[in-house]
């Protein structure tokens, strides 16, 4: 198919519909409004449902309901709105239901601002809601990758019966890039949704969807089962890109649009005789720990570059496990790191310009 030029937020909607999403529930917030707007226009055309809920809390509970009925369902919001959805998300994870949640991240804390940020890293990778649960979290760096991952997000949600989060920052949502909507074959063998509450027609016992388990032994059993699922995700769902790691003096870890800025810095640094590599997590959870085994042993430092005050750095330290010193460079509040800022930090680490 020919390439089309689309805004990130609209491309997410188009990719979701292509992936079979039939229900969308949301509540407006900048910088993701073009996504619900797109859905409101396009969902009726495919026999789907778009509904603007009265709040984020209502929207995520509508997702809970539709997912329970076995539908492919999605919601989207931005940081403070995602914070409001956390109760629903932990219920959905506890009840083992599939759905896709899009977070177009803006600066925080609180209502914060509307400019791009990555300060929801902890919120999306550490649960966010209560209890021992995990989300599968994708963080694409460009619109093509995001579109390509959308089918996978819905499939993985169904396969694992778990909420999947698609994370972009305001830039990913607002920018336009050429996109090709490719035909893809699911790599999952998706089981029938025989657990869905679709009506018994008097033929079978009712299916019950619930996240309440008052018997501690039962609840522990449930938790062990969930952990087995998360282990399988850790085994099978890790995605990352390793770039220019060979002979790297410094390895930068960055995701999303920040990784694009870093890539520019790496090219410029190379011209100045400083060789820098990049590990780009595509899944934030599970975090690509194995990628850190590829770092050359004489690497001087690992540098986390984030649009936050330093959140991913904790996962990097766990993955590095003391093998290299780990440093941080970041901007926050909607300020975007410049290639120059990244380069200066790298030069500081290697001991000045060459």
């Amino acid at each position, binding site marked *: 198919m020919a*390439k089309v*030029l689309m805004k990130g937020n609209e491309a997410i909607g188009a990719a979701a519909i292509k992936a079979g999403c039939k229900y969308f529930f949301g509540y407006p917030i*900048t*910088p993701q409004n073009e996504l619900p707007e797109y859905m409101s226009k396009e969902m009726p055309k495919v026999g789907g449902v778009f509904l603007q809920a009265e709040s984020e809390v209502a929207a995520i509970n509508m997702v809970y309901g539709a997912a329970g009925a076995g539908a492919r369902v999605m919601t989207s919001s931005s940081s403070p709105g995602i914070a409001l959805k956390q109760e629903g998300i932990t219920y959905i994870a506890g009840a083992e239901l599939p759905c896709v949640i899009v977070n177009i991240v803006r600066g925080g804390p609180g209502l914060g601002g*509307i400019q791009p940020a990555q300060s929801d890293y902890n919120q999306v990778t550490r649960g966010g809601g209560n209890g021992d649960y995990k989300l599968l979290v994708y963080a694409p760096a460009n619109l093509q990758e995001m579109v390509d991952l959308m089918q996978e997000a819905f499939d993985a949600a169904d396969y694992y019966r778990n909420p999947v989060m698609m994370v972009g920052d305001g830039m990913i949502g607002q920018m*336009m890039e*050429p996109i090709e909507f490719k035909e893809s074959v699911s790599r999952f063998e998706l089981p029938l949704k025989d657990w869905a509450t679709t009506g018994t027609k008097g033929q079978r016992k009712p299916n019950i969807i619930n996240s309440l388990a008052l018997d501690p032994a039962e609840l522990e059993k449930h938790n062990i089962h969930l952990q087995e699922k998360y282990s399988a995700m850790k085994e099978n769902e890790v995605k990352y890109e390793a770039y220019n790691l060979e002979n790297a003096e410094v390895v930068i870890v960055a995701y999303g649009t920040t990784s*694009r800025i870093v890539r520019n810095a790496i090219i410029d640094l190379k011209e100045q005789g400083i060789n820098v590599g990049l590990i780009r997590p595509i899944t934030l959870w599970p975090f690509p720990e194995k990628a850190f085994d590829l770092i050359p042993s004489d690497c001087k430092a690992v540098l986390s570059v984030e649009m936050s005050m330093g959140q991913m750095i904790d996962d990097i330290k766990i993955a590095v496990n003391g093998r290299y010193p780990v440093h941080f460079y970041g901007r926050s509040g909607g300020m975007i790191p*410049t290639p120059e800022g990244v380069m200066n930090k790298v030069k500081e680490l290697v001991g000045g310009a060459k």
Partner: protein
Amino acid sequence: MLNERVICAGFGGQGVMLMGQLISYAGMIEGKEVSWLPSYGPEMRGGTANCSVMVSERPIGSPVITDDATVAIVMNLPSLDKFERDIISGGKLLINSSLIDKKASRSDVTAYYVPANEIAVDLGNPRVANMVMLGAFLELTKTVSVDAVMKALKKVFGDSKAHLMAINEEAMNRGAEIIKG
């Protein structure tokens, strides 16, 4: 190697977002790598608008222009004041002289003055001022072809605005003539 980083800036309604989109769209039609990044911040609420456009032979890294624009197209005075400093030395500055009395203050940047609004009014539609500027930009940089921009415009306009194609093309030609001198 082609690697243009263009800032289009003006106030809301001047069509600067469309100008940037047409450059990106035309670049895509020509098989180039492109990106378009709008401002959507609080400044937009105040009425100014700008977008950053990349057109390159190579895959595009950061879509953000910080202080490395190769060209800035400014449609009003606040945009000149804001973005003149973001152009690289040796870069180009296209100034809508209908609305901007000031001259460029930098000597290491080549400035071109295009009376876009006057030309647009002369053509009978003040709204095509952006296309006059776009025509000047295309003549100056050859980033993408006028042909590809027309193809892109046809897509953007659809059937309902097909009758506006001619005046838009004429506006681009008139902009180009200013550069040709």
